[in-house]
């Protein structure tokens, strides 16, 4: 506690002065065009939370239409009917038809919502929240750096992200509407689709990729260069390791998609044929007038070369956060810290050589399929190592059941379900049946929704006191947690069953036509009534989920000003450096440059006599057992 007390007194002495004799910044440079990593982190956080909500609203509209194919969407429908883009009719008179007719989502509207739900959730919400927002705010603090390595590049990264968000949002309102070829934008469909929304999507992606590249360079350089004295590689908190590997994935996996995006943009704007084979037909009886000679498979390869590492971009920051929160709330060191570090490095490397398991149905040869099945099975080993280490860390812990720790605990089984149900998709022979069914939807949503998003909620509840000096309400936090846990499973568990039963994804009426459920002439449809009725259950779950998030939103904004004051700078009694500075941290983060003496998880160490059950990383107290451990290693 000594260091904390010292920093508190210093903070009081300095008052509002930042402690470095800085000239006061204007509002614009301090909060809008800021180069401070904490402000940029919060900017990213707010932006991505807004898009998390937008992405969720899109899927709520879709879920309504799937449960009730002929009923107008309440609230959303009448609004969208007025403001939403019109579709360019193919009848030839240059007429347009509304995408929202009578408050109902047409098939093209459904496709646009689906494509943009995926794009927004992945590229505009979860990656910016997990990697950019938490990474920006927490990583420099955890390694004891005054800021990111390149503060202005950091700002450029945010504004490139902002521009990408604008382009993506605007594409809903242009003639023809947004992209509608799925978040994967497979060619030739994406190349020939008659809306400029796809071109907007590509331009938006190039901006978002630029943002990610600038961010990734900055994170890696910061972690390599700006670690405080004594902060050796194996004293880094695991969250920093996770961010380090994530940054490498973004750095090396995103450029191929950028290249693919440029080529698809060429296809759309300059009429080239990178992804269009000779004699390709599109909505007609004649081949398209293109030179041909392209390869649709090329797009899939380049896309999934990003797409699979992207999965780990989504999950690794989440695992990092869960590790920090679990260790803190079990008051125990993480079990197998070095094993986890090794695991995450292997995971990062292997994630580059598994991409084609998304493409088994392209008719690849069995030899290639065998290679990708093998690497896919191998990559599950480090994943299981990470999860096992986290489970082992719970063993004999004195777990504090506060909101962040409950979200973090729920992450473990949810991610487990998501991961294990991925194995049948990694095998060629089972994937043939399950591909593009609701089983796939359920699988990756278990990884990302109750998995990553729960971890992100845990992180929000956990670092909220650092950002604001106040805690969010525990009571409403637990209401949010239990509601989310129950509704998440109501939403996604039935999808496994629907998928097994053969329901395909991307059916705008929820499979009503396919199942022939409303056709009196057909006695037994392709899908049984019980499978079809799950649509209503899932939709009810989705709306319940929305209701519970209202609790979170109110709690979040209310607590910024009115929440219970956090006791001191270190309310969770954590060891890592971000809790050893004043709250909120001043410009430059630390009043004096921190010096690190210990690893990140010195909890409940019986050898330490500092009167606490933890040993802050910059606490100069000696720990004999730690010395012995380090000598052994």
């Amino acid at each position: 506690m000594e260091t904390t007390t010292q920093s508190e007194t210093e903070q009081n002495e300095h008052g509002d002065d930042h402690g470095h004799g800085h000239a006061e910044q204007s509002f614009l440079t301090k909060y809008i065009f800021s180069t401070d990593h904490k402000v940029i982190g919060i900017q990213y956080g707010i932006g991505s939370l807004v898009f998390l909500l937008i992405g969720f609203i899109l899927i709520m509209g879709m879920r309504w239409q799937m449960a009730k194919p002929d009923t107008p969407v309440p609230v959303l429908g009448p609004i969208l009917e007025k403001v939403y883009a019109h579709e360019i009719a193919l009848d030839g008179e240059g007429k347009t038809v509304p995408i929202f007719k009578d408050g109902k989502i047409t098939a093209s509207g459904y496709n646009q919502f689906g494509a943009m739900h995926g794009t927004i959730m992945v590229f505009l919400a979860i990656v910016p929240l997990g990697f950019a927002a938490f990474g920006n705010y927490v990583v420099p603090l955890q390694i004891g750096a005054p800021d990111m390595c390149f503060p202005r590049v950091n700002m450029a990264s945010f504004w490139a992200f902002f521009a990408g968000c604008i382009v993506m949002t605007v594409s809903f309102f242009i003639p023809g509407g947004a992209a509608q070829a799925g978040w994967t934008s497979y060619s030739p469909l994406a190349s020939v689709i008659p809306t400029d929304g796809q071109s907007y999507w590509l331009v938006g992606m190039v901006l978002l990729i630029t943002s990610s590249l600038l961010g990734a360079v900055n994170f890696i350089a910061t972690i390599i260069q700006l670690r405080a004295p004594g902060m050796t590689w194996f004293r880094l908190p695991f969250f920093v390791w996770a961010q380090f590997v994530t940054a490498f994935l973004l750095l090396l996996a995103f450029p191929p998609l950028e290249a693919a995006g440029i080529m698809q943009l060429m296809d759309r704007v300059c009429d080239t044929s990178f992804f269009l084979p000779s004699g390709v037909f599109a909505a007609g009886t004649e081949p398209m007038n293109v030179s041909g000679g392209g390869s649709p498979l090329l797009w899939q390869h380049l896309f999934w070369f990003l797409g699979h590492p992207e999965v780990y971009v989504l999950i690794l920051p989440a695992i990092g956060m869960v590790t920090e929160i679990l260790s803190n709330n079990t008051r125990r060191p993480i079990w197998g810290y070095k094993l986890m570090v090794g695991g995450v490095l292997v995971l990062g490397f292997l994630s580059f050589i598994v991409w084609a398991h998304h493409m088994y149905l392209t008719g690849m040869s069995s030899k290639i399929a065998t290679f990708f099945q093998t690497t896919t099975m191998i990559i599950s080993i480090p994943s299981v190592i990470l999860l096992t280490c986290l489970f082992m860390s719970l063993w004999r812990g004195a777990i504090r059941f506060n909101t962040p720790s409950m979200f973090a605990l729920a992450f473990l089984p949810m991610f487990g379900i998501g991961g294990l149900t991925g194995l049948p998709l990694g095998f060629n022979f089972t994937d043939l049946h399950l591909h593009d069914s609701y089983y796939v939807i359920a699988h990756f949503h278990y990884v990302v929704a109750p998995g990553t998003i729960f971890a992100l909620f845990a992180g929000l509840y956990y670092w909220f006191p650092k950002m604001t000096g106040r805690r969010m309400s525990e009571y409403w936090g637990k209401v949010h947690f239990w509601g989310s846990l129950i509704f998440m499973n109501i939403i996604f568990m039935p999808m496994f069953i629907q998928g097994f039963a053969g329901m395909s994804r991307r059916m705008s009426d929820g499979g009503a036509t396919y199942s022939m459920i409303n056709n009196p002439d057909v006695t037994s449809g392709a899908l049984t009534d019980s499978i079809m009725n799950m649509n209503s259950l899932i939709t009810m779950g989705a709306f319940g989920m929305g209701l519970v998030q209202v609790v979170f939103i109110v709690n979040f904004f209310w607590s910024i000003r009115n929440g219970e004051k956090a006791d001191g700078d270190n309310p969770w009694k954590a060891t890592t450096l971000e809790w050893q500075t004043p709250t909120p941290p001043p410009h430059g983060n630390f009043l004096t440059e921190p010096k690190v003496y210990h690893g990140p998880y010195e909890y409940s160490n019986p050898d330490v006599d500092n009167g606490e059950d933890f040993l802050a990383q910059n606490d100069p107290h000696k720990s004999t057992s730690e010395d012995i451990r380090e000598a052994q290693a």
Partner: protein
Amino acid sequence: MEIPYYDKERPDTGLYNGKAGIWLFLASEVMLFGALFSAYVLLRVGAEPGTWSMGLMNQWVGAFNTLILIASSATIVMAWVCLKLNDWKGFRKWKWATVVFAFIFLAVKWSYEWPAKFTHYDVTFATNESASKVFTDVLGENFEDQQKSIWERRYDPTKEHAGGVDLKDRPLDGHIVAYIDSNNVEHSIDEAWGIPFWSHAFAWRHDRKNIEKEKDKSIRYDKDGRPVYKQGHYRDTFRDKDIKAIIIVPAHGTWDRESSGDKHASRATVKYAEAKHDGNHANSDAHEHHRITIAREDISRLSSYEPAHSTFFATYYTLTGLHALHVLGGILVMLYHLLPVSRRVYEKNPVQFTNRIEITGLFWHFVDLVWIFLFPILYLF
């Protein structure tokens, strides 16, 4: 607030921040161009015979540009060395030399190589008979042998032979000098070309498949009678201009050798029409001033060497265009280092400024290296 290791090296990594950053950035650039090179390999391996027309590239122009870029890589090192030796004047001298080399590179590419391609056309034919008629007219009765040599020069002779490809699918290339509209009025080239070269590429296209769609109501016209295209519509000059026939001067796959003295593409073509042949080809005397009129019904496809011409040209423009954008970015940064403000930055912190020059140099070497890969795969092999 000072960022540590801003201008001095961190002892355990041996890097200052900027150097760590630029190497990481270059790693991502390697992946960007690596993906494009992979796309090149995949598309080329899968290309059908008679579609990978890299023989049309002028290797000497490419080699010249390669030498220019390598020279600029040397001069940028000299600029950095001068700065290390506190020789400000020398730094400016070598830096200007680098900028000039970079400008020459872009000038060759954007005022010569690309425009010359945009104004050079390939015609393929509707039937073997019409093709035979035109080739006899151009090359004489025994055109097969000559055509074979043109073909082999144009495509990879070890892999692709003209024999397997129908006569009608073997392109005749040349420059359009005039067109005849449906009222039998001949319009000279200047009238047709009253547009900048870069939009020329998209202005002259024809595909026979569009004839059937001539009454396509989905094309709307603006008040000047020009069609308003939307996504998915192939722009077709013949349909839009009501063209009955074109008059073309054949070039036999030697698209820029004759016109190498010309800076401007459209002048190059006019000159070509009047030029004496250089004697490279047999029968050349017989074909000077050779204006061939080809009726619209005989043409299967007409396209300049624009990106939409073929996958080869799509790859060529994408790769060289992206590379040229990197060159342009490098020029902007280097010009910034030559502004008067840089002198003040230098005097304030010489180490930091020298580091900036080193980082710029690392980027420039990378741009150079990309070209060293691009040159052989696009021009040579």
